[in-house]
């Protein structure tokens, strides 16, 4: 195995990590951009999606159970998100830091609940047989590189979700309302857009995507009560890098973070690459404090 194989393998890993981060960060970016709400329980939506998938594979078997699980995870997490938005977050509108603390409380409760129900160690979901193999690449300079199918699967799922959300935002009536509220909440409200309904939909969609991300994650890692914590901090960094509520910015930031960690890990250890990533983010905001895709605005008090 030569150098280029190692590098190519890491790059591919980076892109698949980026896909998971994208799925985890999309919902955060949407709801943060639209409502200025930071949902600290977003990671637990991932976890919930994972456990729902686990339950489905127990009920329906590995193959179909996994597919059903993805659907159930999406709708389960979306329903929970809707519940959270309508009972808790709506009450804290305009108090972003308080929302952050309250949702953190929710996340602690969910983690402990998962611990009580499924045990502290975590559960293993065996990936369906059709995802077990890997693609071996031969004949070129990259001979010896083998790409696990699950990683490809994750990238495909992320691409489909990103495409779907883009279509939703750009081509549907709800999407138009979302863009309107994002641009000017007060004006959209005055023109008769039901901003509360839009908030609810976007928040719920975001948590649903996180649930789907959790379902996808089960194919590469066991589900533990704290599985969300491992991803959420990076997802937040993606949101910070990407800029408020911009899909393109979020995508670019996810790819940057994914590739950055993967390439940093060629040179140094996992923990050092975390530190480097953070240093990178802090340096980056020195130049673009509003993220990659910051929208120009004359308003002063933007979050």
């Amino acid at each position, binding site marked *: 195995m030569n150098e280029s194989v190692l590098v190519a393998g890491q790059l591919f890993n980076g892109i698949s990590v980026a896909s998971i981060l994208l799925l985890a960060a999309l919902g955060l970016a949407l709801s943060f951009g639209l409502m200025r709400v930071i949902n600290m329980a977003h990671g637990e939506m991932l976890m919930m999606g994972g456990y729902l998938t686990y339950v489905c594979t127990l009920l329906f078997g590995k193959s179909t159970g996994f597919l059903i699980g993805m659907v159930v995870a999406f709708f389960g997490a979306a329903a929970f998100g809707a519940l959270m938005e309508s009972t808790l977050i709506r009450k804290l509108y305009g108090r972003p830091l308080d929302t952050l*603390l309250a949702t953190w409380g929710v996340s602690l409760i969910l983690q402990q609940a998962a611990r009580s129900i499924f045990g502290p160690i975590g559960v293993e979901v065996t990936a369906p047989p059709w995802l077990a193999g890997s693609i071996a690449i031969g004949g070129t300079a990259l001979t010896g590189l083998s790409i696990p199918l699950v990683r490809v699967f994750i990238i495909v799922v992320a691409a489909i979700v990103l495409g779907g959300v883009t279509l939703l935002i750009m081509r549907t009536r709800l999407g138009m309302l979302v863009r309107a509220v994002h641009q000017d909440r007060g004006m959209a409200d005055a023109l008769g857009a039901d901003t509360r309904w839009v908030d609810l939909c976007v928040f719920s969609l975001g948590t649903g995507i996180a649930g789907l991300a959790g379902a996808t994650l089960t194919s590469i890692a066991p589900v533990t009560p704290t599985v969300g914590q491992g991803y959420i901090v990076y997802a937040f960094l993606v949101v910070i890098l990407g800029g408020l509520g911009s899909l393109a910015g979020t995508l670019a930031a996810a790819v940057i973070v994914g590739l950055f960690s993967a390439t940093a890990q060629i040179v140094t250890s996992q923990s050092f690459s975390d530190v480097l990533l953070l240093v990178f983010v802090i340096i980056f905001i*020195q130049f673009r404090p509003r993220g990659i895709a910051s929208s120009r605005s004359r308003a002063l008090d933007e979050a």
Partner: protein
Amino acid sequence: MNIARKELLYLALFAIAACAPLYLSGYEVTILGRFLAFSILALGISLIWGTGGILSLGQGLFFGLGGYALAMYLKLSAAGPGQLPDFMQWNGVTTLPWWWEPFRYPAVALAAVIIVPGAAALALAFLVFRRRVSGPYFAIITQALVLAAATLIISQQPFTGGFNGLTNFSDVFGFQLTDPHTQLALYFVTLAILAIAFYVLRYVVQSRFGRLLLAIRDGENRVRFLGYNPVPFKMIAFAIAGALAGISGALITLSIGDISPAMFGVVPSIEMVIWVAVGGRDSLLGAIVGTLLVNFGKDWISSAFPSLWLYVVGALFVVVVTVAPRGLVPLAQVGGLRIASLVRRRTRVEPAVE
């Protein structure tokens, strides 16, 4: 409550705490001392969050820096002159890393307890606030920072003690750590530092600096338009909070006898915020009361019903923020005022009847 009465209340509370060894057992005094040491950090959070509107989810980082600074001295002192700390020998390290060298001297270690976290906080605040990054963004960055610090310390086991942290100390400045007299002295030192920090911060909050900080919290841009640059004010406040967290970390290290990443990671850091939220974020007394309440509650619940604690603390976050965002102490003060005014009304009515 008028000012003189408030002053008396504070003095009385500190006096009650100072007499604690008279009516509490040695173990209880140690526990109380530990929570009072946490309160020093909570005072810092009250300053930056309550007065300055800066929510930091990474105070554990500065707590840890202070704790490790002192623990490094304790470790070297336990190893004896010219020797390596035990965990370095187990990990096959043969020479002391250069950044451990200064911690042979107690004066350097003591200074580092304040200066290192203070300087780190100052640098972070400069880099972030300079670019007008604030609010939730800042909170997330501090959380990422504390996560990165904890992972880094765990991964560098040969030099930092890794997951287990630094432990097995023998003596501090010649006094045996396990000696009850040392622990009692530590209690009084903690209480004295807390009292000093409390009165200094009270002065700071009421000074011009404090009022500007409050103004920045409520309308940063307006403060800018009035000709002030908010950045240095936020930096100084954040550095003070960082230094207080460092002192708190050092005292806790002495009290518990070890310091490890588990004591200052992401979860402990955000728990520190809930202490202040419960007590009342914009009251210094609230920070202390909240810290004591939550920690005694944690102590009690996690020994009686171990699995319940996370539910309780989670519910606390939700309930405090939605029902009593200003915390318990202001709530109690408002209650006290109502009662006082009721009493006054009654006394005012009586002469009219005659």
